[in-house]
């Protein structure tokens, strides 16, 4: 297996070099092909770890300080490597076509390759140093990718700034947590930390867990640390958004499992109450903003937050039931969490691919300016439709089994006794149900307004289908959504092996998923077959009666406009108007900003000269929490400016004083 690992490293390194050194011609092609190679090697390696169930280890103590470079790929990590690898391979393929549009500069190509390397390396890490190194590689390279278009777009700078602050703040929290754990165990190795953590005091363990939770949950877009996500995921170029949403956010979940379950062995009940609560709030906030957003990529980004919230709810339910002594429910909920992660990776990368293609073709992400793209971009539209149905949990796509498992987990968690569990789980079901409905609004809007109806602007009317590799990449992930929807055991089986559930796995069965020892069964395969059969029968019926009626063709008519002829595309419902009812229902939560400006003709108030309407729907968390925070930071910065007046001597004096203080204190 070492040879696979070395081949992976070599390919990934070569791709970054190719990105940095090759001339413009062929640069992206070479990098992308090498990246696909690297992903493949990583996939094979991870696949072997999952199938054999034994860890792959590799270390070079000289390569990094503090414990050296240590790789330890466990089956759990391998699951995340497989996910990152699949999304990375598809994104690299997509990138080849996307590079005609953007993301072809030397720096961007290098950063893209390093980002993929980081994504694949994080779950492979076997000690704290390697983990943090890979984590930072991933964070910094993705930061460069978010900012790479800063010359053309001001929003990219703002997004990069938010992202930089949040990701580095999170990294600090993670570093403190892992460093503390390592100090306690006198080793940076995760294995040693796990054995050493049993002697931790409850307070210390809780502190380390909460610190890690802050860092990792922020990576997964948990409220209130999510504010960077809708900006960064929206501003990043197409394949990078897919990587961020399809692979990077997963690693936040991986981190929570790593610290909470592997290193700290499940910990205490209230940790998981916190995780559940954060997950519930995240899911609702994400779904609400997705339902009211008019920027298609921002919508997808908020939906990522929403889905990670669901994952956190499942994780929380798992930890909760484990701590209260219901291991069967805990196992089911953990499988659910990971199945949700896998499904999300597949459908969200599909959706971001399609949205990236739309952006490349129309130079717009504002759905109010799009429309009718299904006619000019049929393949892209179809892949987006698959993603839409998958994320809305509709059979026969893969989101459906995830949602079903989540409901079963919560149902059985509620059956387990305990006041705290009862309250959290009841609220969790409510949150899941509410987000389910809101997600359908968001994605019916995203697909319906962007791809159906008539084009609302010149750029939408003149759009062309995306390049072949972009179409292929999106189709492959869309197909994966369908296959894993019809045969979910393809995913669940891998998850079972990754969790080492053995023969008593909580969910199993190729044809019928059965919960053991709990009760519950579902057969997505037969259900999908029945749906397909029913569709064929109904189509046949319609064809029969159409033939019998004697009308040879379908009449194409101008649609009904209450007697008005010549309806224009501008009369259609837009994304804003489609989401307006929800905006009104949740007015008190969202507090949108509306402004109507009417000026009348001088002669009569009954004739309008000019009317302008402006609406802004800024994130309430950003407005209520981060604005005041930024303002107070700004105030402090202004008032502390006096001590930094530019004199070198003064700065040196500060250094000297600090040195003296340290000497005195240490003494």
């Amino acid at each position, binding site marked *: 297996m070492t040879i696979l690992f070395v081949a992976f490293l070599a390919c990934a390194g070569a791709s970054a070099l190719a990105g940095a050194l090759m001339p413009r011609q062929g640069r992206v092609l070479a990098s992308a092909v090498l990246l696909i190679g690297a992903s493949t090697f990583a996939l094979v390696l991870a696949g072997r770890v999952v199938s054999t169930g034994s860890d792959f280890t590799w270390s070079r103590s000289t390569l990094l300080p503090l414990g050296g470079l240590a790789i330890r790929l466990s089956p759990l990590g391998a699951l995340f490597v497989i996910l990152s690898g699949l999304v990375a391979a598809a994104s690299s393929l997509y990138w080849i076509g996307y590079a005609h549009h953007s993301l072809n500069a030397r720096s961007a190509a290098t950063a893209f390759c390093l980002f993929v390397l980081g994504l694949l390396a994080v779950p492979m890490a076997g000690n704290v140093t390697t983990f943090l190194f890979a984590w930072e590689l991933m964070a910094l390279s993705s930061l460069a990718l978010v900012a790479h278009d800063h010359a053309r777009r001001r929003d990219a700078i703002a997004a990069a700034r938010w992202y930089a602050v949040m990701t580095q703040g999170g990294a600090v929290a993670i570093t403190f947590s892992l460093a503390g754990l390592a100090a306690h165990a006198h080793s940076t190795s995760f294995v040693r930390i796990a054995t050493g953590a049993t002697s931790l005091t409850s307070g210390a363990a809780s502190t380390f867990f909460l610190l890690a939770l802050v860092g990792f949950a922020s990576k997964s877009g948990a409220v209130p640390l999510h504010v960077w996500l809708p900006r960064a995921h929206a501003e990043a170029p197409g394949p990078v958004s897919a990587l961020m949403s399809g692979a990077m956010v997963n690693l936040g979940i991986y981190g929570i499992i790593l610290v909470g379950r592997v290193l700290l062995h499940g910990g205490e009940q209230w940790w998981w109450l916190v995780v559940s609560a954060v997950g519930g709030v995240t899911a609702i906030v994400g779904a609400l903003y997705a339902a009211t957003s008019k920027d298609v990529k921002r919508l997808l980004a908020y939906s990522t937050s929403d889905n990670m919230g669901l994952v956190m709810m499942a994780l929380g339910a798992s930890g909760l039931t484990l701590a209260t002594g219901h291991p069967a429910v805990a196992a089911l909920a953990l499988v659910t969490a990971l199945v949700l992660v896998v499904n999300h990776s597949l459908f969200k990368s599909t959706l971001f691919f399609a949205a990236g293609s739309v952006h490349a073709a129309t130079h717009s992400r504002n759905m109010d300016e799009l429309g009718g793209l299904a006619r000019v971009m049929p393949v892209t539209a179809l892949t987006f439709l698959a993603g839409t149905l998958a994320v809305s949990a509709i059979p026969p796509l893969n989101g459906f089994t995830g949602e079903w498992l989540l409901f079963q987990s919560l149902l059985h968690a509620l059956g387990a006794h305990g*006041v*705290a569990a*009862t*309250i959290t789980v*009841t*609220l969790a079901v*409510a949150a899941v149900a509410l987000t389910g409905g809101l997600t359908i609004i968001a994605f019916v809007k995203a697909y319906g307004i962007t791809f159906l109806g008539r084009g609302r602007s010149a750029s939408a009317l003149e759009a062309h289908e995306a390049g072949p590799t972009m179409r292929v990449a999106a189709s492959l992930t869309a197909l994966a959504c369908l296959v894993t929807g019809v045969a979910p055991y393809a995913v669940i089986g891998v998850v079972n092996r990754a969790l080492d559930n053995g023969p008593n796995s909580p969910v199993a069965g190729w044809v019928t998923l059965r919960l053991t020892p709990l009760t519950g069964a579902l057969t997505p395969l037969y259900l999908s077959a029945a749906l397909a059969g029913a569709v064929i029968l109904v189509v046949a019926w319609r064809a029969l009666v159409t033939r019998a009626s004697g009308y040879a063709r379908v009449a194409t008519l101008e649609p009904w406009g209450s007697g008005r002829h010549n309806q224009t595309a501008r009369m259609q419902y837009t994304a804003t108007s489609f989401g307006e009812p929800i905006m009104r*229902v949740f007015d*008190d939560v969202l507090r949108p900003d509306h402004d109507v400006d009417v000026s009348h003709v001088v002669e009569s108030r009954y004739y309008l000269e000019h009317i302008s309407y402006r609406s802004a729907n800024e994130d309430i968390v950003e407005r209520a929490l981060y604005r005041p925070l930024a303002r107070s930071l700004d105030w402090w910065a202004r008032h502390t400016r006096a001590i930094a007046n530019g004199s070198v001597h003064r700065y040196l004096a500060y250094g000297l004083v600090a040195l003296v203080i340290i000497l005195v204190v240490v003494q």
Partner: protein
Amino acid sequence: MSLSYVSLLDLAVVVVMVTAALTLWRQSLAAAVKALAVQGVGLAAVAVILGAHRHDLVLVGVGGLVLVIKAVAAPWLIGRVVAHDHAAREASPLINVPASLVGAGVLTLLAFAATRDVVALVGTPAGRLIPFGVAIVLIGFFSMVVRRRAVSQIVGLLTIDNGIALTAFLGTSGVPLVVELGVTLDVLLAVVVLQVLVAQLQRHFNVHDLDQLRDLHD
């Protein structure tokens, strides 16, 4: 379907609970008063069922008293105020209806959590219904907090009282008749006073919203 003591009791308590939710749900004041009357019937039923089960004639008597006062007299008195009011609606509650309903749900969960020990302590089929009594008290309080209209306040007050009475019925082996009599008549007195007060307020100041009364203080 067996109409046993336990399922009858469950049903009666659920009726009281749902009517408490209804007073928050419906904006029409007439509907709230109707719900209150049904709530009184439910409460009386609880007392009668418990009394019959324990062969406690006094408790059955208390049930009859509750029926007269809370299901007939008090709603009738409040109903007279509503009947004189042209716009008998809770126009703009401080928290909108869906949010207050969600709030009621959360309060019920809280009541359930807070009374776990009490339920375990009492340990009777009636005892496990105590969370509902506490939840009704909380919902009544909540509706007094979020509703503006004076009539809504009275309805909230009566809901609180019903919740307390329900908790007392369920938790103890029976409230002494004297105590129950005193409490119930006190509430009736309060309703009479409030009814007169609200009617006077309407006549003199044309005020429905209690918040507007703040203008009177200087």
